């Protein structure tokens, strides 16, 4: 080659660039760039879509404000009745004119955030319904979703999954992708647990049996302790009658660690309160010696030890028949904090690592078989020109791989299918050109002129035909999730790569054969 055209330079640059991107996938460590990402369906892993039950966060906010209101009214000696929360509203009755005046005062001074939904005065009795302005409700919901995302992220970080992907999806959905996670069920438990830790006093004055019959005393409720015997796999439920009032919650925690009980060789979780929590805990234990304090996690009792003495220092332990893993995970969720609202799983897709390996193997096998068949077909049908098309095809696959690595796109199983499809369709551009060249040769043009005319006439057709495929691929990318997106990516890359290889690379090869090597005839 005496004179190097700009086209040759471009081709060489592209070739070099794509090698730079692809090689790391084959031989790691030495190369500067990252390798091709494999999708969850190929490397195994878990894909979850969670929905944050944001209404619950609103409800608990209103519930809490109701408690504050109750306390405030009591300290101001306001007579009231029937204070209860219904959905997002607080209903109550204030009795007596004097109380009504004081109530109005309290409402204006201390509870400005409430909106008065309805107010009916009947003699000296005031029925009032309070709620929150819509903007506040929306704000609480938004915060709940954000905070849930943050909490879940912290939990997963501590759990130790490499390269997790956690993001908001829409207003209240959270997408969690955990590649290569070994124990999906454990991960799900860890993510989905609300982890609301509460300490409640056990009511020993009344009998549990009576309460179970529906005669639970005012201000108490029944919670269960569920214990699974690991040998028989039987679960047993023990009812406890506890006070509804929560004395202390997990929001005062600063730390939670797994320790091993030296006596029983059994793991437990030791928790540490902050200063305020420590003071509260001290006060509770001080005034309730010899009573039982239930440690409640998500409305299930873990244990209900008897308070032996006043506990200062702000440390406590949560026991129960934990396995090491359970204790470890409990410590994580306690450290990361409770979810502001429960979440539930809307969508789950888990692929085991062995299935992923299978998919890669089968995908590659069909790619190689399909590729070889097409390559032979082209050589048989078009001879030397077919060989040129095959070179273009090989380059095409290299370019797709480079594109995947370069854009940090993810290769999925449908993505492999997309590459295989591209193998079949990429030769199309070459077929179009070759058929045109044959036509031109038939009307008696010289090989050089025929190649020139063939390319000129076919270029526009090829562009038109490929743009429409690209449109379909782009729409697919917009709509698709995970694996389907991967398909759209490889299909688009394939289309663009085949335009380059057919219109520029194979043209260059023809030109260099016909001009530089002075070939008289064309084997096509």
């Amino acid at each position, binding site marked *: 080659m005496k004179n190097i055209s700009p086209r040759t330079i471009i081709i060489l640059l592209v070739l070099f660039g794509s090698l730079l991107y692809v090689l790391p996938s084959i031989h790691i460590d030495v190369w500067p760039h990252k390798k091709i990402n494999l999708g969850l369906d190929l490397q195994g892993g878990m894909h979850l879509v969670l929905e944050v039950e944001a209404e619950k966060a609103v409800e608990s906010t209103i519930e809490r404000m109701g408690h504050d209101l109750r306390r405030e009214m009591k300290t101001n000696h306001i007579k009231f009745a029937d204070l209860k929360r219904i959905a997002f509203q607080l209903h109550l009755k204030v009795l007596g004119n004097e109380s009504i005046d004081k109530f109005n005062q309290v409402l204006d001074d201390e509870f400005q955030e409430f909106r008065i939904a309805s107010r009916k005065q009947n003699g000296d009795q005031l029925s009032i319904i309070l709620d929150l302005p819509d903007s506040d409700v929306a704000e609480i919901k938004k915060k709940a979703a954000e905070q849930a995302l943050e909490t879940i992220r912290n939990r997963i970080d501590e759990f130790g999954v490499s390269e997790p992907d956690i993001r908001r999806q829409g207003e209240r959905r959270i997408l969690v992708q955990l590649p290569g996670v070994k124990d999906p069920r454990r991960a799900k438990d860890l993510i989905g647990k609300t982890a609301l830790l509460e300490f409640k006093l056990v009511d020993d004055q009344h009998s549990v049996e009576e309460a179970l019959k529906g005669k639970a005393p005012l201000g108490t409720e029944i919670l269960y302790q569920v214990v699974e015997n690991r040998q028989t*796999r039987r679960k047993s439920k023990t*009812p406890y009658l506890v006070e509804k009032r929560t004395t202390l919650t997990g929001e005062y925690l600063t730390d939670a660690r797994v320790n091993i009980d030296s006596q029983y060789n059994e793991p437990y979780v030791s928790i540490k309160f902050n200063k305020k929590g420590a003071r509260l805990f001290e006060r509770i234990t001080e005034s309730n010696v010899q009573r039982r304090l239930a440690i409640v996690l998500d409305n299930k009792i873990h244990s209900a030890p008897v308070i032996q003495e006043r506990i200062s220092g702000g440390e406590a332990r949560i026991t129960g*028949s934990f396995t090491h893993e359970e204790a470890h995970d409990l410590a994580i969720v306690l450290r990361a904090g409770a979810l502001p609202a429960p979440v539930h799983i809307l969508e*789950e897709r888990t692929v085991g690592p062995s299935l992923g390996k299978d998919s890669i193997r089968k995908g590659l096998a069909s790619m190689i078989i399909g590729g070889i068949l097409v390559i032979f077909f082209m050589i048989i049908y078009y001879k030397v020109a077919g060989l040129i098309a095959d070179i273009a095809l090989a380059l095409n696959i290299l370019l797709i791989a480079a594109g995947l690595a370069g854009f940090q796109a993810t290769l999925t199983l449908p993505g492999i299918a997309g590459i295989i499809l591209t193998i079949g369709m990429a*030769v199309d551009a070459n*077929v179009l050109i070759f058929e045109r060249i044959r036509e031109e040769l038939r009307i008696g043009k010289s090989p050089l002129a025929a190649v020139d005319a063939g390319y000129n006439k076919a270029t526009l057709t090829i562009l038109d035909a490929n*743009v429409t*495929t690209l449109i379909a691929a782009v729409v697919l990318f917009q709509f698709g999730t995970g694996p389907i997106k991967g398909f759209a990516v490889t299909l688009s890359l394939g289309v663009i790569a085949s335009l380059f290889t057919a219109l520029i690379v194979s043209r260059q090869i023809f030109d260099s054969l016909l001009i530089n090597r002075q070939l008289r005839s064309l084997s096509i």
Partner: protein
Amino acid sequence: MQFIQPDINIDFIGKRHIGFYVSTALILISLLSLLLHGGPKYGIDFAGGTLIQIKFNVPTTVDTIKDSLKPIGITGASIQQYGDASNNEYLVRADIAYKKLEGLSDKVQQALVQAVSNISDIETPPASETLETSESATPTPTTQTVSQEIADEQPEQATLPAEVRRIEMVGPQVGKDLREKALLAMFFALLFITVYISGRFEFKWGISAIMASGLMGGVYLIKSMGISMPFLIVFALILAMVLFWCLRLQYAMGAITALIHDVTITVGIFSIFDKEFTLPIIAALLTIIGYSLNDTIIVFDRIRENSRKLTRDTFDIVINKSINETLSRTILTSLTTLIVVLTLFLFGGGIIHDFAFAMIIGVLIGTYSSIFVASPILLLWKLQK
């Protein structure tokens, strides 16, 4: 080497009524099958539900699996052997009917693993007994956990007789969302493509763009009023075709008719074979749209070129000539594409199997439609004159 001789001249246009009958018959059969099956058979992506692919290390039967699922209250699950019988691999699918989908996969998994561990170990009692949860209260809260248990836990986990290879759970709301998204995607793909064709072939970018955006806006507007999507899309497509007709966007009309034809027949054949629609199948349908259009455009392109060159010939002769000239290319490309989709179908493994099947149908129908459907439609206007 040459399959198609250069001087070939098949009278495709003269025989277009044959194509018309064949296409009508195929579409009617497709619609009939869809009607008899009560619409397309949605996979769990669209219908919601739980799917578990599980591989056992010991031989087991569908009945054993069924029995082991009974104690946890799953009686209507469909259980299918997956792949070779020697693989001992099964697909368990539970419908949306089980209200509590969340956690269902875990329960099924536990029950199945339990069932086979009982087969491999005769000493332990049958599955149904061990799985029962006793609601009765045990008087004393357990505090006496034995230390050995913890040590025992690990090896037991490691040698499980079954491996869960895939779990897919899609809630009803997500299924509905995906269904709508899929329909919209198909619809938008069709619209964008017709805009491109009208623009490129008839230089009517403006008209077609306005029309498409009008249709799109309309669909979104009516959708917000809560009208069922499938009917909406069908209505919008019919409206689009009427508009193409009135606005004389003949190339767009030809292309979109061919595409709807292809998609309908592919969907119909899927319905006849009782195959499920999943997300990858939607991807396949969109690829078919792209592929079939590829074919159609190449023929159209030749028609456009030839109608400038052969001004003396009538339009039907021009079309016929164009089809014949591109025939060699059409057949060749279909052949190479078919080769790779077939290898994918045969060697690609179970997950990609149906995708490849859809592509095979699509490639065949797409090739046929660009010759027998898209091109003859161009004649509708000319014959009117």
